[in-house]
């Protein structure tokens, strides 16, 4: 028997890093102990599959960077151990810890270390740098050591970011032999020019009005009409009407993109509200998020902005059903194998579809060839969960040739001003609630804020008495009417506001 190894107290290396789960972050310390004993490399505090993968990458990267992997007993602990973590992004911290504990690195790494290692010792970008850097900032530490490709994102999040291409560069930086310069904070990108301006679209006064109401109040909108009448065009004009992204919203929306690995390195912070248009073949994971480790889906990537479902009837009903929770709650919780992650998902939903299977019901230029029952089935397929969440439904007819040529259309900029003014009225009303739009008014707030003028009250009362509206339907109409009034700068809701809300609510 060998004698017990002498205690190596003080030889434990500690390297700061940050764990990610969903959008949650937590500071983690990588503790590395190199003790005498049979050569071994153990990692605790990570899920099993992630451990074996990290072990192989770290061992190869250290060797291939010209360092020695200690032929002793190496134990790595990611503390706190019980905290859920995604597996990647710790490689750099682990490798620096091993080098520090084995005496190959002279100084303690003090910066937040985020990076995955390639077998040749290269440092690779990881997802979720932005929220992890913000987490470190909140704990008072600012320096970040990460892959070159992540440096701009870390800097945009407020960190002092040092980008490295390899483990050797990281070691030289920490040891002070060759300090890397801090990455420049990327200038915020100019707000992208929206693809479509309202003035590009001929005719369609009512659909445009519905678009304005949706943009202002965050109400969901369904555009229905024959092929080629401009439904997709109208939906793509929505970004041109949305109010600018305020800084708090920009941070969270950008963090969601970061976690999904969708950051634009040149402009890591979003400059405009996102507009996401998933294809109708999108899986349920792609749409609402999922997987292990979890990733946000389109409905969360659209958070603070708009989600556009074109050709709505082509989406699988089962997939659409999964949108119910995020549309209702403004957030989606993904549960898998006992672990769950929550992503925000407050979106303005826009959807477009044809009125029937052949597309030509109500088309002045072509005859519908569908059997009446087939048209009913077509609508029934969509009814229930999703159509229940639609606040505005508007027909997009084929327009006359003269209208296509007509001049004097209102530009998006003018409408955007009305939208911004209406949003300000809503914001003042909802201050302190964390909610911003009329679409999110609670029943209590409706009672308080949707005060009806006498003639409007008569109309609403008649609608309720006639039982053509459920109480849920009444609330939906009142929220929309509130937005119509806000767009008109009116405090009270008049009959014309309720009238338009009723007309645009669909069956």
């Amino acid at each position, binding site marked *: 028997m060998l004698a017990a190894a002498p205690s190596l107290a003080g030889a434990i290396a500690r390297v700061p890093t940050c764990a990610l789960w969903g959008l949650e972050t937590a500071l983690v310390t990588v503790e590395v102990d190199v003790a005498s004993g049979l050569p071994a490399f153990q990692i605790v505090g990570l899920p099993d599959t992630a451990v074996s993968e990290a072990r192989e990458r770290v061992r190869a990267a250290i060797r291939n960077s010209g360092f020695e992997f200690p032929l002793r007993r190496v134990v790595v602990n990611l503390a706190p151990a019980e905290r859920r973590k995604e597996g990647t992004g710790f490689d750099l911290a682990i490798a620096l810890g091993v080098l520090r504990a084995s005496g190959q690195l002279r100084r303690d790494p003090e910066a937040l270390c985020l990076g995955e290692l390639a077998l040749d010792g290269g440092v690779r970008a990881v997802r979720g740098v932005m929220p992890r850097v913000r987490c470190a900032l909140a704990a008072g530490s600012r320096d970040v050591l990460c892959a070159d490709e992540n440096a701009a994102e870390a800097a945009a999040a407020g960190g002092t970011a040092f980008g490295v291409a390899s483990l050797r560069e990281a070691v030289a930086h920490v040891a002070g032999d060759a300090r890397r310069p801090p990455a420049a904070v990327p200038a915020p990108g100019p707000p992208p020019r929206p693809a479509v301006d309202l003035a590009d679209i001929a005719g369609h006064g009512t659909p445009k009005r519905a678009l304005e109401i949706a943009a202002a109040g965050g109400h969901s909108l369904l555009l*229905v009409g024959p092929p080629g009448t401009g439904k997709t065009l109208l939906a793509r004009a929505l970004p041109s009407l949305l109010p600018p992204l305020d800084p708090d919203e920009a941070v969270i929306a950008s963090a969601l993109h970061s976690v999904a690995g969708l950051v634009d390195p040149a402009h890591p912070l979003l400059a405009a509200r996102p507009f996401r248009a998933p294809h109708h073949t999108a899986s349920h994971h792609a749409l609402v998020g999922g997987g292990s480790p979890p990733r946000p889906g389109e409905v969360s990537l659209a958070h603070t902005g708009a989600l556009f479902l074109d050709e709505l009837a082509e989406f699988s009903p089962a997939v659409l059903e999964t949108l119910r929770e995020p549309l209702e709650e403004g957030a989606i919780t993904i549960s898998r194998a006992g672990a769950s992650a929550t992503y925000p998902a407050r979106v303005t939903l826009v959807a477009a579809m044809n009125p029937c299977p052949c597309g030509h019901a109500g088309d002045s230029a072509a005859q519908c060839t569908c059997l009446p029952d087939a048209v009913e089935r077509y609508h029934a397929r969509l009814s229930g969960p999703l159509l229940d969440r639609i606040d505005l*439904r508007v027909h997009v007819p084929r327009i006359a040739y003269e209208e296509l040529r007509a001049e004097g259309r209102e530009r998006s900029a003018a409408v955007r001003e009305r939208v911004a003014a209406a949003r300000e009225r809503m914001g003042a009303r909802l201050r302190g609630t964390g909610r911003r739009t009329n679409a999110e008014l609670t029943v209590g707030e409706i009672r308080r804020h949707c005060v009806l003028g006498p003639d409007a009250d008569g109309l609403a009362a008649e609608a309720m008495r006639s039982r053509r509206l459920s109480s849920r339907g009444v609330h939906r109409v009142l929220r929309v009417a509130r937005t119509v009034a806000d767009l008109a700068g009116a405090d009270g809701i008049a009959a014309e506001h309720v009238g338009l809300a009723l007309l645009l609510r669909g069956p």
Partner: protein
Amino acid sequence: MIVLRRDDGRYPARLRVLSRPPETIWVEGDPGACAGPAVAVVGTRRMTGYGERVAREIAMACAAAGVVVVSGFAQGIDTAAHRGALDGGGRTVAVLGESIPVFLATVRGRRRPLVPRVRGSGALVSQFAPPVGPRAWTFVERNATIAALADAAVIVEAGVWSGALITAADARRLRRALFAVPGPLGSAASVGTNALIATGVARALTSPSDVLDAVGARAVTPAGPERDPILAALRDGPLGVDELAARTRIPLPGLSARLAPLLVRGTLRLLGDGRVGLVS
């Protein structure tokens, strides 16, 4: 379900004009509904808004004049005719292209709620023994039965291949008065009916009273032209809000103020595609 053999006193006399009258017919409702003046109102399943309106107007005129409306309870024109007769407070007989139990077990959509109303006002009739289902040949035989049960037939809309043209041929062979509703040039749903008129096979129906005269009934106060421009614009089918604004020349703010009470009171309804239509 009532089973009527040919020797039964309640067996409809008019069926005896057929070269091979059905040995047995099955009836739910009143077998007597097949007596008295009757007009067949039939047409394509793929109807237009125009066809739906005209079928309804003819059926309502029949109802007001006490004339039974006979049709085949198919989707489209047939259903519009039955519904028009019922909404007008009249009687209607549905002659099925399949046995009654099979029809009752499979009917869906907008026709389903009409079944008890048809049964209550007149009758469901079939010449097919359970469990015969719908087949091409059953519809051919059924169409002859429709022609036989009525004193006159109106083809509202029919494409080139429409089964309603078979009913037209049967009506002609049985020397029933035959009318076709003229349709817009270029409308696929009127190619067959316009051809019936052009070739002189059928008379052009210029008003519901044409067919009522032919069966010896008197038209009761034909409804005057619709005064409200909104309701008038919607007579030929539902319209989008902007289309309605263009037809009526009422711009949107005023239009929505006028539409809202009509929607709330149930005069108008909103369709799944956002169009506004008359409640029928």
